[in-house]
């Protein structure tokens, strides 16, 4: 049996954008991949999927689940059919993200300095001060080159007419970039020659750009600044990503206990004594960064690192306190920010969002809760959210109680049907929902976005949640040369 038959049974979902098909035929940019896949015998596809799995295993691209006492190695599910973005779609996304990032970065600088945007009443003051990620410790702190968001992973989704929407801005420590790089390596292996045939733009330059940006942040006038990567340690689920990036950039991977602060300077403990650290690329959240300032019970961070940061003796990437800009309640105001700071119309649209802190919007949401997705403003990873259309009455009632305790902590959005892409699941080609997280790097030379990103897939049939912690997987993401 040729795989062509698998595609014949591919069901299109009503009212949903499909990346591969328009109403009657395969979209032009998928044509080549479609033909290649159709000519492969069906059992060959199974072999390719197995090859992909064994490659992830043998390269150690795994995360460990510690639920049953001893660790179980798992792989982040990978779908073998690539997701393809055309050159023109990409240049639109690129422009949109650059604009958004520029505005968000200006917003952070403003909020932590003169606060013009609050004084002009564009963003309500109480929203800022009630945000748990707004850090007073950062008020008046100057960061190198005024860059707060060095690395952003803005999540995009597509509505039923193919329009791109921003789902959320991840401006703290966005993860997943190692999968962008590794997925591409896997595609090279399972579909030899398919990449050059389709003129897919490469993604391997990401670590080099990031490294160049990190070096540029050093405050000392030395020829080789000391850049380190701070990881929470081997038990972190993204530890694989930390080691990969550190290796690809040739920088030291350190844990909190490897660093020490003296005289408001950060030093790394080495076999040859202490060595001053200039730039820290941290994958530790704000609240664990410095036990003297934030969570005193945590040993993941470094005591005194924030004082060194405030003094300007060390650069921290991403900047501390960015959470105030990707708070889901602040998200509503991003289009206004773009108009306010840049005097431009937003290129990428926001998903319509109701703030439950506002009485009239709350009433509307509670009445129509079955058509809504309700989320916590500071949540992430798909935890603690309510999908109105799929929840039971009991779940809805419980959730309502939660909301009424502290409405500020919640927002609601109408259910947006994410776009579909063909996935190879259980020996069949089936549509599954996807999103897109491109990775943008903001350095002193401007914003660069590597052509590609992480496409996350909701592998459960009909599911709209793509987070890896909720059974999501990923795809290789191709951006075609124009």
């Amino acid at each position, binding site marked *: 049996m040729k795989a062509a038959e698998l595609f014949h049974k591919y069901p299109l979902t009503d009212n949903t954008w499909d990346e591969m098909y328009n109403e009657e035929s395969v979209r032009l940019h998928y044509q080549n991949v479609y033909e290649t896949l159709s000519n492969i015998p069906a059992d060959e596809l199974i072999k390719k999927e197995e090859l992909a799995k064994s490659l992830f295993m043998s390269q150690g691209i795994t995360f460990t689940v510690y639920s049953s006492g001893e660790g179980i190695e798992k792989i982040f599910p990978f779908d073998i059919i690539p997701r393809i973005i055309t050159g023109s779609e990409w240049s639109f996304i690129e422009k949109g993200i650059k604009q958004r990032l520029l505005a968000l970065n200006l917003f952070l600088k403003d909020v932590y300095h003169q606060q013009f945007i609050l004084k002009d009443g564009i963003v309500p003051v109480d929203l800022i001060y009630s945000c748990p990620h707004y850090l007073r410790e950062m008020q008046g702190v100057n960061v190198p080159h005024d860059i707060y968001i060095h690395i952003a992973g803005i999540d995009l989704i597509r509505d039923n007419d193919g329009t791109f929407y921003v789902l959320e801005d991840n401006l703290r420590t966005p993860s997943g970039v190692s999968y962008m790089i590794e997925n591409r390596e896997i595609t090279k292996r399972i579909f*030899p020659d398919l990449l050059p045939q389709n003129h897919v733009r490469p993604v391997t330059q990401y670590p080099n750009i990031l490294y160049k940006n990190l070096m540029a942040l050093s405050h000392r006038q030395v020829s080789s*600044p000391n850049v380190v990567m701070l990881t929470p340690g081997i038990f972190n689920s993204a530890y694989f990503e930390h080691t990969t990036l550190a290796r690809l*950039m040739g920088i030291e991977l350190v844990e909190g206990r490897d660093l020490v602060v003296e005289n408001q300077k950060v030093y790394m403990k080495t076999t040859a004594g202490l060595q001053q650290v200039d730039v820290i690329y941290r994958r530790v959240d704000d609240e664990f960064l410095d036990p003297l300032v934030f969570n005193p019970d945590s040993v993941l961070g470094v005591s005194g690192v924030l004082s060194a940061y405030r003094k300007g003796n060390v650069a921290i990437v991403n900047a501390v306190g960015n959470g105030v800009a990707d708070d889901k309640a602040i998200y509503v105001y991003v289009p206004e920010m773009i108009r306010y700071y840049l005097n431009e119309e937003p290129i990428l649209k926001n998903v319509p969002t109701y703030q439950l802190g506002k009485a009239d919007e709350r009433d509307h949401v509670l009445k129509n809760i079955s058509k809504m997705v309700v989320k916590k403003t500071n949540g992430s990873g798909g935890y603690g959210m309510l999908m109105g259309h799929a929840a039971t009455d009991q779940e809805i009632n419980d959730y309502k109680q939660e909301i009424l305790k502290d409405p500020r902590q919640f927002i609601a959005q109408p259910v947006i049907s994410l776009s579909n892409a063909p996935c190879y699941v259980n020996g069949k080609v089936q549509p599954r929902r996807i999103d897109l997280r491109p990775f943008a790097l903001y350095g002193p030379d401007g914003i660069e976005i590597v052509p590609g990103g992480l496409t996350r897939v909701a592998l459960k049939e009909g599911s709209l949640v793509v987070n890896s912690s909720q059974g999501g997987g990923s795809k290789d993401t191709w951006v075609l040369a124009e």
Partner: protein
Amino acid sequence: MERTDSILRILKINYASSQDSPDDFSWRPVLQVFGNLDDDAISNVGENSRAVLLYMVLDKDNSNSIFNMATQARENARGVQDNITVEMWKCLNGFYHVVRDDRLIYALQHGDPITVLDSLIKECMLYFGITDITMFRGEGLCFMNVGKYIERAIQSAEILDIKLNSLSYDLDKPTDTAYWKYLLMSISGYSLYLKKYQSGFEARNIIDQVLFDVNFPRSVLYSLHHLDLYFERLRDDKNAEGFSKVHFSIGKLKSKVQYSNVQSVSNVGLHDYLTEITTEIDEIGSTLNQYYFAYS
């Protein structure tokens, strides 16, 4: 075997890069160093990765094809079975049968080339490991290592020369980072480079690492040090004349490389310098042959 390993790695990395950025990629340099095709033939197969791989791995007319080298290595081993361990013989014999397997042709034509190259590289690593762990530390091993480091020094110098040639030896010519990255990856020197030089990719640093870094196992200087080391152990009164001749030329070349640096080399002219090195290593090889193996 040293050459086999080196070629396989180069093929693997070049293939990977051909998948990455097809527009500014060419197989030409690889074919020029290792193949015996003329210019027209290179243009014919040059753009087709699969054809290049078939030529480099399996072509019987290419004296540097993996097929021919594995066969040669096995033949040599057969001739000296009394001097090598049985594990080593089995390993080389096994490798020979792997490259003769028809499935290899099919896999190279239709399957994933990297899987094929990886499996061949594994055979080479097996060989190095088995040699290290089973061979008696005597004359036999010393001769093997002398040969190995002669080969390695030549390889590194030639690869560098080819890369620089396409820049017309202009060290300030701006290059794509991928250009140097793939060179370093094919000699397993990428991570070391990133750690050692923190200023991005620069031709001068690459030359420094590939020629002069004493701790980089594929640098020319490292190879010469080890060549000297293993040859020293062959010192024997019975062949005093041969020993002193070869020892002299190794020592001379080693000091020449040891007391050069990127600056002085560029003053002489990089191409001339690299050619001098390879010629001198070649000469060491033939003197060695003359005094130790010719019996005339």
